[in-house]
């Protein structure tokens, strides 16, 4: 459907009625997403989170909410937040953590840095590895294709979450012995490594399928008959047509990695004290739901809104870019 639209617009250009530049699938998608209000709102929410995360060190100074400072005054003798609503006050806009009196807003901001960092780098790594292997498999076919596809099948057959938890300590120690700075650097490196190890398959399968179909198309045949090299084929012919799928895939895997970081921290495969992480906060807060419900509610909603925004944006992008998406009634 969208392909036809593209062809029509360029035909108009050729006929000279109106000089319109030929639109790439990417440009057409952009035009369409601008009309999707939900996706635009989601986009700005994501921008807001990224902005807050990036500027967190400055913001906590401006707001005077040190995420690491202990505040004995803000908690009572039971270690619970003093005052109603989980200790919400001018000093601590979102309340304080039971036990230590550390500021929840400040910790949420620093937690956002970790979540987005893991989400972004994890997505970049899985996408890069996945796209590369997918293109290689699709283009080379034969033995290489079989090898990569079987490798993918084997990877998918692992009980990934169990392995991630079980391997956490030995692998982190191994990484440290390889010279990665001990502590949280090694732990984040581990999480990113396993995310990439288990995450590339989906991307690779998607790309491989696309490449297998694209390589038989006329424009690729034409380029090949002019003697185009592999480099030209990949970068000039195939990749521009793969971008829509890649963007959609990225926008859907980002939130799952953000949530996975929280899940892993919750399960104890996370960061060392005193680092802040949404997963650690959520895991801790469950015990306090009666005494300090805001402590469970606020980090929960923060995480939910971000993941929801990512998903809405991802849906919008898929509607806009994926030619076969039948949800799009353009």
């Amino acid at each position, binding site marked *: 459907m969208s392909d036809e639209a593209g062809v029509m617009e360029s035909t108009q250009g050729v006929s000279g009625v109106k000089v319109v530049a030929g639109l790439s699938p990417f440009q057409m998608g952009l035009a369409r997403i601008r009309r999707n209000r939900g996706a635009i709102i989601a986009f700005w929410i994501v921008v807001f989170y990224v902005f807050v995360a990036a500027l967190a060190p400055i913001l906590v100074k401006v707001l005077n909410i040190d995420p*690491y*400072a*202990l505040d*004995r005054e803000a*908690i*009572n*003798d*039971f*270690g*619970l937040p003093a005052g109603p609503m989980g200790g919400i006050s001018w000093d601590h806009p979102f309340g304080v*953590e*039971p*036990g*230590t009196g*550390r500021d929840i807003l400040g910790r949420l901001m620093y937690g956002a840095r970790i979540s987005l960092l893991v989400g972004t780098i994890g997505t970049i790594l899985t996408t890069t590895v996945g796209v590369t292997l997918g293109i290689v498999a699709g283009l080379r076919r034969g033995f290489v294709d079989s090898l990569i596809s079987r490798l993918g099948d084997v990877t998918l057959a692992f009980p990934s979450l169990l392995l991630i938890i079980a391997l956490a*300590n030995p692998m982190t120690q191994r990484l440290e012995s390889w010279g990665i700075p*001990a*502590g949280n650097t090694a732990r984040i490196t581990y999480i990113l490594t396993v995310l990439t190890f288990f995450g590339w398959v989906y991307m690779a399968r998607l790309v491989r399928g696309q490449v297998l179909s694209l390589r038989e198309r006329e424009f690729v045949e034409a380029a090949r008959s002019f003697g185009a090299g592999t480099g030209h084929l990949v970068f000039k012919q195939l990749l521009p047509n793969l971008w829509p799928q890649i963007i959609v895939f990225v926008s859907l895997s980002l939130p799952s990695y953000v949530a996975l970081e929280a899940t892993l921290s919750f399960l*104890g495969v996370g960061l*060392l*004290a*005193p680092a802040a992480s949404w997963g*650690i906060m959520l*895991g*801790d807060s*469950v*015990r*306090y*739901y*009666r*005494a300090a419900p805001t402590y469970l509610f606020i980090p929960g909603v923060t995480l939910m809104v971000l993941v929801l925004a990512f998903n809405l944006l991802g849906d919008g992008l898929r509607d806009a870019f994926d030619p076969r998406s039948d949800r799009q009634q353009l």
Partner: protein
Amino acid sequence: MKMRSKVLAIVALVGLVAGACGASGDGVQSGEESGGLSATLDGVKDGGTLYVLTSAEGASTLDPQRVYTGAELGAWGSTFTRTLTSYKPVAGKDGTSLVADMATDLGTASDDLTTWSFTLRDGITWEDGSEVTCADVAYGVSRTFGSEVTAFDGPQYAVSYLDIPEGDYDNLTAYPGPWLATEEEQALFDDAVSCDGKTITFNLKIPVADFNFTVSLLAFAPVPEAQDTADQYGLKPFSNGPFKVETYEEGKELVLVRNENWNAESDEVRAPKVDKIVWQFGLDETVIDERMLADSGDDKNAIVYGGILPVNLQIVFGDESLKDRRTDGFDGFVIYTMLNIKTVSCLEVRQAIWLALDREALRTAAGGPFTGEFAQSFVAPLLTTDYAPAKLLDGTKGDGTPNTKAAIAKMNEAKEKCPEVYAKATEDGLRFDHPDTDTWKKYMAIWIDTLGAAGIKINDNPIEQSKYYATINGDQGDLMSAGWAADWANASTVLPELFGKGGGFNYHNNEEDPAFAEFQTKVEEAKMETDRAAQAKLWKELNQYVIDQVWSIPGSASKAQNIVGSNVRGAYQWLPFGWYNLGDLGLAG
């Protein structure tokens, strides 16, 4: 005995020699709150089903020779495992005095305290009606030696006290336990533990003044050889008490029903009331507290194994209508932080760590004053004979807050005296090993923050909770968290275990410390001392010595709180075990 998770607060085994040294009513029980009406027997009726709610996935074991958790020792002892002696089933300090159980009296010792003998009462029967014999007791004791089955899980006093030659087996004796022993090897054990009719005699290799307390441990309970299923015995032990195991399924439930073949006349200790006791395992801790607060249906007949979550203390102790159903008191544990003397060999650095530490903040993070009192000794206050608050390091504040200024001064001294350790503590950082729990993440934030203020760097090293002690057994950090309670009312089950040569819980690597030799000599002296008052004086001096050397930093003398259903009666805190007398609990209404 070892500390389980603090949150689970599976509590203590502390035996006390009440009266032995004129235990004075000295504020030790401050803050103690009895269970009010629920501790009495008002309106109690015979029969009914008592429920035990717990988040634990199962009992650690039902095998008498393997169990070592305080509350379980009390629970199994009061229901299906009788021993030669046991503790008096009453509330308060009297509950720590010893009474004859299967034995006719508290035992007879030779003058040099190396031979102890006990005579069995008539008419004690197993659940199949057969008689409990002296041979059954001897067989039970011999099981502790079989480390391939009992795996050193239980207390090892049989191994360290009984007069059996040293040898090459895992337990370092020449006797490998009843399952593997050859005839000659079995003869070695039979020399140490001999039977003459109904009288059993223990020959010890060292004098032990309170061996009759030792035999109250379930490790000295009888097991009939014909019923022994070795490593399966912990799933269905053979009962000689008022209850027997009907079914036991880990993760689900343990059902105890009345044992018709229990001979009440032979038992002056137990007074069972309910027909059935059902343990429900694997419940969510939060859900347990909710159910107990709601107090409806069968939960009125329920008790909790594991205590109230710290977060709910404010609710439970803020509500006067719960006055008759709640308890609060010391659980016998001292929580402390071990230092690795091999890596932190500099006394000044250790003193600086102590001074910089914010014990008040740590206690608040744990749940506040309810969770314990700042410890001044590694011996718990419940051991009144041996307990004396030590003089703490100069500059330590009584309210638990840090003295950062004094800590910095100590660090400056350390810079001159031991530059290597100083550099490690300030630049590389000290590795802190601890169980990986949500609460510990907060403790670490406090450690890092408060010690950082004195220029000491701490590196967080969380270890999976269930593997914690096994891990530090092999690889010790620079600092390590720990908790310990006495096995019975003698600091001989505390100080030598924690700091002495070959101590079962000594991870300090302190044997290379120049101060160690003097300590060890005095420990040997104290162990051999047969005059109890003189011995207590030595223990107090040794405790002061350890505190002066800062081999460990005492944190708090731990307390536990609990709540029972509104129909439960007889739920007093039984001091030796830090929990209820399970077998004697009754139901009203």
